[in-house]
């Protein structure tokens, strides 16, 4: 009897809000903040683009800074026909590419050893690697001056005022972080995978090259992009250690050659900054999917 009574009765409907309406509101709020965020971060590059298309006269005139009355490519033509700018660009490119290669060669192997080949002190070393990343570079360039002087005295090699010195310097910033990213990435690869390779007859080096590097490719690409960005945008070290125009890299070059005394050539500065920002932007665009996959690796299973 009791069963029959339950079966014939209508189920009660307690009042709740609509699930889809809740979701719509959540989406509206997220769009609102995302748009705010996008405006905030896109404003400077857009301002750079607008200014780079103006003449010096228009820039200094008291008109609407967000409007171009007489668009011109003169800034681009001037900058690209200057030999300096191309030299800075070349220096930056060579330095960045060499730094990426050096960093990846060191940090992939180091991370593999630290993450996988359990040896005495490996955990402490892994922490140590990360701690070195925490030391601000501003604290390092005075000791580096002393070291350069010592190298010059003892070995007779002048490291000051050469663009290639940056190839030795930047890895001190990039290797710890790239190694740290890679340790995390390698640690997320199941242990059985290298054990299987070990039983299959692979040496440690073969395990690294044939199993770990292909499997960890997203992580390696993430580390590569990071390294390139750091090397490309590095400002403090080249400012401190290079002075001759032919030895400058792009970020320092633009500032030192386009600001003469108190005369700011805003049009060309903006053009140079915009052109300088292009290579990392292009690399990001191509490798974005890998980059995101790399940074979120191991967050969830499969």
């Amino acid at each position, binding site marked *: 009897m009791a069963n029959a009574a339950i079966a014939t009765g209508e189920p009660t409907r307690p009042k709740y809000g609509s699930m889809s309406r809740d979701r719509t509101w959540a989406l509206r709020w997220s769009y609102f903040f995302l748009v705010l965020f996008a405006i905030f971060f896109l404003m400077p590059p857009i301002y750079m683009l607008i200014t780079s298309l103006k003449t010096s006269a228009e820039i200094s005139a008291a008109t609407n800074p967000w409007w171009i009355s007489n668009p011109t490519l003169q800034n681009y033509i001037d900058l690209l026909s200057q030999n300096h700018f191309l030299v800075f660009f070349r220096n930056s490119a060579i330095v960045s590419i060499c730094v990426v290669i050096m960093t990846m060669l060191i940090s992939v192997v180091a991370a593999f050893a630290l993450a996988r080949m359990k040896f005495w002190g490996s955990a402490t070393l892994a922490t140590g690697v990360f701690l070195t990343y925490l030391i601000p570079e501003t604290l390092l360039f005075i000791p580096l001056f002393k070291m350069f002087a010592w190298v010059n005295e003892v070995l007779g090699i002048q490291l000051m005022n050469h663009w290639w010195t940056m190839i030795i310097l930047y890895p001190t910033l990039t290797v710890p972080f790239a190694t740290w990213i890679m340790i995390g990435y390698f640690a997320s690869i199941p242990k*059985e995978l290298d*054990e299987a390779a070990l*039983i299959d*007859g692979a040496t440690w080096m073969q395990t690294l090259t044939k199993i770990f590097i292909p*499997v960890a490719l997203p992580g390696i690409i993430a580390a590569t992009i990071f390294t390139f960005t750091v090397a490309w945008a590095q400002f403090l070290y080249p400012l401190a250690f290079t002075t001759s125009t032919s030895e400058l890299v792009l970020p320092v070059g633009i500032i030192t050659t386009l600001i003469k005394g108190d005369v700011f050539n805003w049009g060309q500065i903006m053009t140079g900054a915009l052109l300088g920002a292009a290579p990392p932007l292009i690399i990001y665009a191509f490798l974005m999917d890998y980059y995101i996959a790399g940074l979120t690796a191991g967050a969830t299973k499969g």
Partner: protein
Amino acid sequence: MAQVTLRKVVKKYDEVLAVRGIDLDISDKEFIVLVGPSGCGKSTTLRMIAGLEEISGGDIAIGGHVVNDVPPKDRDIAMVFQNYALYPHMNVYENMSFGLKLKKTPKDVIDQRVKQAAQILDITELLDRKPKQLSGGQRQRVAMGRAIVRDPKVFLFDEPLSNLDAKLRVQMRTEIKKVHQKVRTTTVYVTHDQVEAMTLADRVVVMNGGLIEQVGSPNDLYHSPATKFVAGFIGSPAMNFITCQLEQAAGALRVRLNDTLSFPVPADRTARYTPHVGQPNLMLGLRPEHIMETRPHTEPNQHDFDMLIDVVEPMGMETLVYFTVNGREICGRVNPNAGAAAAQSMKLRADLSNMHLIDDSTGKVL
């Protein structure tokens, strides 16, 4: 010939003894299953045979050669892991041929062996798929294929079926047995599932607390367990253990469970059990299938007793009944048509011809 011999093998992690000196002889072509609860040292033992763990003491020999310091790749073994450990960036063919390629085996030999193994395992049409495009069962097959193509002296399986669902597990179990019958390679298989151990093994090694409790054929372990641990571990539902006393009356022995329950001991066991009359800490071990309903039209005998049933679990082909004796829950297996019902009294019969008498202080079966 590939016997595997373990002599006084010890594994110590810092201060913890994971394996406490075990001896084991595995003969050529034998299928050995190491079984035990988690933390009993079975996986550690397997990994020591594989060379993935260094041994802290004793000797391990494969095919008559001590391999204590031989790296895994030179031990001529193949291992199948619980999570398959397939190389995710390689397709099935590359996964299976990886080991042979590293050994610089000629291409045509590799091709022939991979195709042959694929045929044995029925995965020929999967050869150019990536692991992530395969189901759990298919991945397990590929992992086995990777082991087979290398034609090793010994196969090692580390809980290979634990990640599969129940139905597939039963299917793959049969598959593994078939493969072993085809390739006849010495096999060491680790599992915590005693059913898997019973169904697959030529001999089962029951481990507990880093020691071997008993080695024997599945039937031996089931019918003649050496210890209380083995008696309780093998068989599902587990053996019932009831505190008891052994009494002598008129030349015959009786097991007394409490004031109201006592059963005569079968005559053929009298001589064996007589020394233990009056001994404290005795336990009667009786499997659920040896507690059944009394059949109608049979003579009432001294093994019958009435019991209030607590819980009834119909299983289809049989019904499990649970009741309480001496404060312990006891399980019996009765015919589904016997009319068992919870909170009702039922007439049951204990078949003591398969009883075990256990000294609870030593854990030994007497």
